[in-house]
Structure formats: structure tokens, C-alpha cells
């Protein structure tokens, strides 16, 4: 069996086991669980049941919040602020969708973000592992990471343009940099915080360095990496609009910039909302992956 395989564990099986234990309290199969088992098991069982009810409540609250927000926006727009009203934005969205502009922009932006983000994390994970595993490499790499972390990716753009020209390369590069820096630090943190006892346990069970790395360090740092990826994705999106300032012909950031020239507020709103929704969807996807891959974690 693959140790990194997502563990389909959570609530159901907890309930099953708790139930099994309760059904069979005197059979002596679990004789070493006196009062403690119930005390310890009770809250777990409750925690397993709660989310279903809680999640429903949360969704309702989320929906209410969104509606209130839109309502507030509408009221502000109607009362003279320089804002487009929701219907104006919706109709502009309709136009942009029907003439294919929005799809083209989304495709262009998504391509940049995904390529930059994928390259960034693909580079960050091995580098983070190497830094965490070998002190020498950490000493060599860390100053550069710390240095570049203090420079906002946006400040790199002029340099990137001069060196790489004005095509896709500098845009993807700054997104790559943003994602890389966020993820590399998280991965490194994950590796150095792997419980020593687990490594020792693997060693006394006959595991060599390679096995320890693949079967202990990698799974143990997965939660950190996934958090790093989520932060990296946020940085990647945050960098996108600025990256598309560079002689772009397409893209949500470009569209927003362009609309600014024409004082075209509804288009700006459509662009902003699209970026927000896409970012949210991608974050949810990562969150889902995180739940699946790190369901084994004990949460408070």
C-alpha cells in the first residue's frame, strides 16, 4: 500500500469505531480502555457528528453574508457613490461573455497563473526539502530566499521586462517567483519540524535515509507544503494583475487596466469579481486536496 495515499478516514469511520467499542464493552477485547476511553472517545464522536449540522448553518450564514454585501453595494451605488449597480455589472458581464472577451481573458490569466504557480511549487518543494535535509544547502540557499522574500514581486517586474522582453516570460516569471517564495519556506518548515521520534522509529525499524525521506519526511511535511501552496496561490493571483501591466493583449488584469482608461467601471467590476471567484475556486480545490491528503492529522 502506498503510504502517501490519501487516507479516506474522517468522521464516518470514527463513528463506526466508537460505535463498535460501545457495542462490545464487556467482551474484553479492549480491556485496557476503562473510563478513559469514553472520556476520550466521546468528544471525537461528537466532533464527527457535528460538522454536518454545522456546515449547513455555515453555508446559510455565508449566503446571507454575500447577499448582505451585494445589498450594501447596491445601496451605496444608488445613493450617489461612483459605483456601477449590480445589474449594470451583470449586463456587462453578459456582453463580455457573449462576445467571448471574458473567456479569452480568463484563459490568458489562468494560463499564466497556473504555469507560474505550477513551476513555482514544482521548484519550491524539492528546494525546500533539500534545505530542510542538508544543513549545508540550507546555509547556501537561505540568504537568497530571505533576500528575495523582502522584495515584492512587483518590484522585480521592470527588471524582468528589461531582461526577458515583453512576451509571456516576464509575466510568468514574476508569478513563478511569488509562488516559489511562499511555498519554499513552508516546505522547509515542514521538513525541519518533522518529529524526531518518528524518524528514530523508522530507523529502528530498519529504514535507511531514502526510505525515511520518502515514507516519513514527505508525508509528515505534506500539511506544511499544502499550506505553502495555498499561500503561494494567493501570491500568484496577487501578482497577476501587475504582471499583466506589461504589454499584455489579453487577461483579466489587462482588461481592468484598459477599462480604467475609458472610465468603464462595470468592466473593472467584472474583472475583479472574475479574479476573486477564480482564486476562490482554486483555493477550494487545494483545500479539498489538503483534507484528503492530511486527514490523518489530529486536529483540536
Amino acid at each position: 500500500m502506498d503510504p502517501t495515499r490519501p487516507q479516506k478516514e474522517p468522521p464516518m469511520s470514527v463513528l463506526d469505531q466508537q460505535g463498535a467499542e460501545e457495542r462490545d464493552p464487556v467482551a474484553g477485547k479492549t480491556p485496557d480502555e476503562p473510563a478513559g476511553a469514553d472520556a476520550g472517545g466521546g468528544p471525537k464522536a461528537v466532533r464527527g457528528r457535528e460538522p454536518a449540522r454545522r456546515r449547513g448553518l455555515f453555508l446559510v450564514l455565508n449566503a446571507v453574508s454575500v447577499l448582505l454585501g451585494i445589498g450594501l453595494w447596491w445601496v451605496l451605488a444608488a445613493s450617489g457613490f461612483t459605483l456601477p449597480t449590480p445589474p449594470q455589472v451583470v449586463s456587462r458581464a453578459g456582453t463580455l461573455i457573449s462576445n467571448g472577451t471574458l473567456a479569452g481573458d480568463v484563459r490568458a490569466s489562468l494560463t499564466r497563473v497556473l504555469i507560474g504557480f505550477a513551476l513555482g511549487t514544482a521548484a519550491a518543494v524539492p528546494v525546500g526539502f533539500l534545505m530542510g535535509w542538508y544543513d549545508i544547502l540550507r546555509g547556501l540557499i537561505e540568504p537568497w530566499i530571505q533576500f528575495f522574500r523582502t522584495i515584492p514581486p512587483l518590484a522585480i517586474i521592470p527588471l524582468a521586462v528589461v531582461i526577458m522582453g515583453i512576451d509571456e516570460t516576464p509575466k510568468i516569471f514574476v508569478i513563478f517567483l511569488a509562488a516559489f517564495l511562499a511555498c519554499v519556506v513552508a516546505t522547509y518548515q515542514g521538513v525541519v519540524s518533522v518529529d524526531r521520534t518518528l524518524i528514530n522509529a523508522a530507523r529502528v525499524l530498519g529504514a535507511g535515509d531514502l526510505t525515511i525521506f520518502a515514507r516519513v519526511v514527505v508525508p509528515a511535511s505534506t500539511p506544511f507544503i499544502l499550506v505553502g501552496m495555498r499561500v503561494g496561490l494567493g501570491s500568484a493571483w496577487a501578482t497577476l494583475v501587475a504582471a499583466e501591466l506589461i504589454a499584455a493583449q489579453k487577461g483579466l488584469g489587462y482588461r481592468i487596466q484598459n477599462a480604467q482608461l475609458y472610465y468603464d467601471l462595470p468592466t473593472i467590476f467584472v474583472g475583479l469579481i472574475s479574479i476573486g471567484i477564480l482564486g476562490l475556486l482554486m483555493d477550494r480545490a487545494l483545500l479539498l486536496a489538503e483534507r484528503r491528503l492530511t486527514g490523518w492529522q489530529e486536529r483540536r
Partner: protein
Amino acid sequence: MTTETAKISVQDVTKTFELGRETFTALDRVSLDIADHEFVTVVGPSGCGKSTLMNILAGLETPTAGRALVDGAPVSGPGPERGVIFQQYALFPWLTVRQNVEFGLRTTGVPKRERRSRAEYFIELVGLERFADALPKTLSGGMRQRCAIARAYAVDPSILLMDEPFGALDALTRVKLQEQLLHTWSRDKRTVLFITHDVDEAVFLANRVIVMAARPGRVYDVIDVDPATERNEEFRLSPQFAALRNRVWHSVYHQEGRTAVPSPSASARS
């Protein structure tokens, strides 16, 4: 007992750690022989180096001076003939009970089918068969430690090194696990070095109790327990047990003035 026949032989082992500018002597010329199939407990105050001693035997640390032999050969790193059970269970939280038990079998290259059946056997031995596919987070402390015991047993070590394995458990669970451990041990005798800070536990389990002293860590006293004694509740409540416990208790808690051994003022705790 001569060193040649000893299963485990610790010879003049000294271990020092540098703590800033100071040198801390965790073990000071400790010598100790353990015979095959012997169940030895080590008890002592914190800082007496009992965990260091275990780590050296496990191959996780190297002595500063002296040497540790297992089956007559110097210890140089961990080996499959020495199983280790840690106080914090050290189960891999992302693996199920079964996968945890199979871990050592995978690293030593046992083929899949045999792995499966051996894991099954040891999971049953510790009574976790209904939890074989559960993740550690769903298990109680006692069940986790039983899983760790099954995992150590599965690779079939001839020596078990246990570092306060029941230290984090409540008293009732602890007594149960002690009895289970002895039961397992009596069916399938291995050499056990069991570290504890609990005097009762040390006396109940052992053929021989080794009392260590701190600053510097050293062997302070050795108390034999008749191996023929049956370890059950009767023994636990017997005058023989009480006498042994008194003896060990004094050895552990009255080390300063080395003459204090039979001091009636501070007898057994209740």
C-alpha cells in the same frame, strides 16, 4: 555471567553532552550484562541517563567512551534484532494500524503476502484486530501503545528496548498493559530492557531491577526478583512484592546519603 554469554553487554560506557560551555555526564562508566531472555527494568530519577542508555543500545546515539555489545558485536546503528518502543508511541499518524505494523516488514523486504499475515498475527496478539484499518488518531493511548508493541514485535527482534512505554497512560490502563506485556513475553520470550520511573512497574515486570543514580548517571543498585514468581495480582499484593518495592524505593529515592537504605520513616507510598 561472563560477557561472552551476555545478550547485551554494556562495558564502561560513558556519554557526555556539551551544554553550552558545560559538559553534562549522562552516563559515567556504566557496565551491565543482560542474559538472553532476561527481563530487566531500569528505574531511576530523571537525569540518570536511563534513556541515553537505551538510545545507545538502540543505536540512535554513540557512547563517548566504552562500548555496547549486542550478541557480542559492538552496536553501530539500529538493527532489526533490536525493537524499540517509545514513550510517545511514535506511530506514523498517516498510516493505519496495519500499515504501521507492516512498516518494519516493508523496510526489511518481507514479501507482501507474508507481511500481511505477520501483521495480522501481531495485531491480533495485541487485540487490535477490529482496529486494523483505523488511523492512530482514532485510538486511545493504550491502543496506540499496543499498536507500537505489535509494530516492534512484527520484525521479530530478539531484544525489546522499551523507553517508559506506559509512562503516558493512566494507572488502570498501565496495569492492564503490564500484564499483557508479560503474557506476550511469557509466550514468546525475548530479552527485554524496560525503562521506567515507576517503582511498582519496575518490580512487577522484572527478573532484575537496575537502579540508576543521577549526576553523573550510573548504576546504583541491582535487585533480583525471583524469575519463578508468577506475575499476577496476588504477587502485586503480596508481602514479597512490598518488600521488594521498599527496597527499590529506597534505592531510588534515598540515594544522597548512601547509607539510608532501610529507613523506616519513609516507607512505601500509599
